[in-house]
């Protein structure tokens, strides 16, 4: 398994696209931090980058990579290796290389410029978001054999989590404006890793007071060690569950 992972990572790192992704991230982050006059603002601008670009790239790149390595997978399957091992190594390889790219591209400037606690949070959240969307890519690509369809599904997933979900939330808030929905919202954000990540970071910045009463409810929950633990567990579930489903499907798939 180690050898497969190593092989996949090397294969991906040789890919020019991932290099481009790293350079893009680093240009974005360095420029954001040097353009904005204070680091908190830089961090807020970078937040949008992390929550938009990183998921988009992670999910699309992984989906395409999986389709392109169909032949390689078939080749591996002809060897005496267990299917779960192959699929897991692919997942590990993709995730690790994307995490590396994120760390080099965005992580270093974040660690240099931003205050340590928020920066660290941003780094962790970025790692989680990358992993979650790789995992979703695995699910998208196992659902259908058709490459175009698969990429379509993954882009839709991205669109849903970054934009549509927030629209739904807003709609729901206006429908339920008469009710105390704050606590319910805590539960609801768990259904979207991107929102959860965004709120986790906002709560660590001093803009959190602007979130008002709802923000206070969130802070009461996510501000505690228990809440943070819960949030990370949820993000971890988001990273594992889609992959796990795809793993089961891959095991039983007639290739």
């Amino acid at each position, binding site marked *: 398994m180690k050898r497969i992972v190593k092989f996949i990572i090397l294969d991906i790192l040789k890919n020019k696209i991932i290099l481009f992704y790293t350079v893009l991230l680093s240009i974005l982050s360095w420029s954001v931090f040097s353009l904005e006059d204070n680091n908190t603002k830089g961090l807020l601008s970078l937040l949008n980058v992390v929550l938009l670009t990183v998921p988009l790239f992670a999910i699309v790149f992984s989906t395409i990579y999986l389709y392109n390595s169909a032949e390689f997978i078939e080749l591996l399957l002809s060897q005496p290796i267990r299917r779960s091992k192959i699929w897991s190594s692919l997942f590990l390889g993709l995730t690790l290389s994307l995490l590396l790219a994120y760390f080099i591209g965005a992580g270093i400037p974040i660690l240099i410029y931003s205050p340590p606690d928020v920066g660290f949070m941003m780094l962790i959240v970025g790692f989680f978001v990358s992993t979650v969307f790789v995992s979703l890519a695995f699910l998208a690509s196992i659902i259908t054999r058709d490459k175009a369809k698969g990429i379509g599904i993954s882009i839709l997933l991205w669109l849903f989590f970054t934009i549509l979900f927030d629209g739904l939330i807003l709609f729901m808030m206006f429908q339920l404006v008469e009710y105390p929905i704050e606590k319910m*919202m805590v539960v609801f954000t768990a259904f979207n890793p991107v929102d959860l990540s*965004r709120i986790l970071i906002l709560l660590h910045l001093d803009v959190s007071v602007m*979130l008002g009463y709802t923000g206070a409810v969130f802070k009461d929950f996510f501000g505690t060690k228990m809440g943070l633990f819960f949030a990370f567990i949820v993000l971890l579930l988001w990273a594992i569950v889609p992959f796990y489903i795809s793993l089961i499907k891959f095991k039983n798939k007639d290739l």
Partner: protein
Amino acid sequence: MLGLARKLEVGVGKEFHSIKEALLVSSDYDTLYVLPNVYKEGNLVIKHSVFIQGIGTPVLDGEGKYEVVSIKANYVTIQGFKIQNSGYATLDDPCGIKVYDSHNVNIFNNILIDNFFGIYLQYCQKCIIRGNKIEANGTEEQQIGNGIHCWKSDSLQIIGNLVSGHRDGIYFEFVTNSIIWRNISKFNIRYGLHFMFSNNDSYISNVFKKNGAGVAVMFTHKVKMINNTFTENWGDAAYGLMLKEITDSYISGNHFYKNTVGIFMEGTSRIKVERNVLLSNGWGMRIQASCMENEVKCNNFVGNTFDISTNGSLVLNSFNGNYWDKYEGYDLDKNKIGDIPYHPLSLFSMIVEKNPPSMLLFRSFMVSLLDKSEKIIPSLTPEDFIDNAPLMHSLVL
């Protein structure tokens, strides 16, 4: 009884060993010189028009039991003392220095530390409180009094004091024709300046910093607020300046920096807000729909998350000739005024005002999309909430 004013010296090896003795023999217009020592004399009551000068900052200690100095005479000056540890009682409010029903009392250059109330004036006229340093380390609102507390007074001058760690830094209730000038009020638990039913007052060149809830000015008319700095009042219910039921007032040359809300207005009318700087606030201004005939002009709005928000569609105020850093218009005729009007209200700020929980979507991609589209084709924000002459460049303020 008419005689020459005398000079009484209090201190070790002097004529008087305690201030109380000296006060007993003193009569009007005498001068008391108090030499350095720690005087624990309980409550000092001043009943004559005397001048009390501390030399080398003698200490008056209330031992946590007494009101330290009570002034019950006119034409009293107290200067150069360190007054500390007054008692704590919510019924009779013991103070560092309390002035009862007097006029022309001067309180100069004292240091007041850890008193329940610092300086307290009631039913006073023409008093001057200048150059005092008033400090306490209050933690809860009900455990500590105000730094400078003025009640039912007239023609006061509060100048160059430093107040920190009290409940309200400076508190005015039913005080008229007074001036608050060049004070610094910071780290107070509630308000830096709390101002109620106090007409015809001015406060000029003060600094209000990191107070629990900023500055509150309420139920007052004809107040002038000029060249003050309101900074870092940051918290759930903190405002740089909160105006409630204010009329005919003038706000100019103030700096609002890093407050959750720069200026909050509710039920105010006929106020002119001009030449202020609103920089890096959460909300630059929140103007409730209950405000009318206010004029907001020639201000700089820079780096605020929301420049302005309001809670209704009725607009009875004018917002012309300001500089908005979010303005994206152009200036073809080069007259330094943007050619297209500016809508300072963002859609999201409207949404948040109607539905506070939606602040949760703050900084999400969808919200920025909504805002951008609303900027181009305004549909939901009130049409007449508009700056018809937005400036292209920020004013030098």
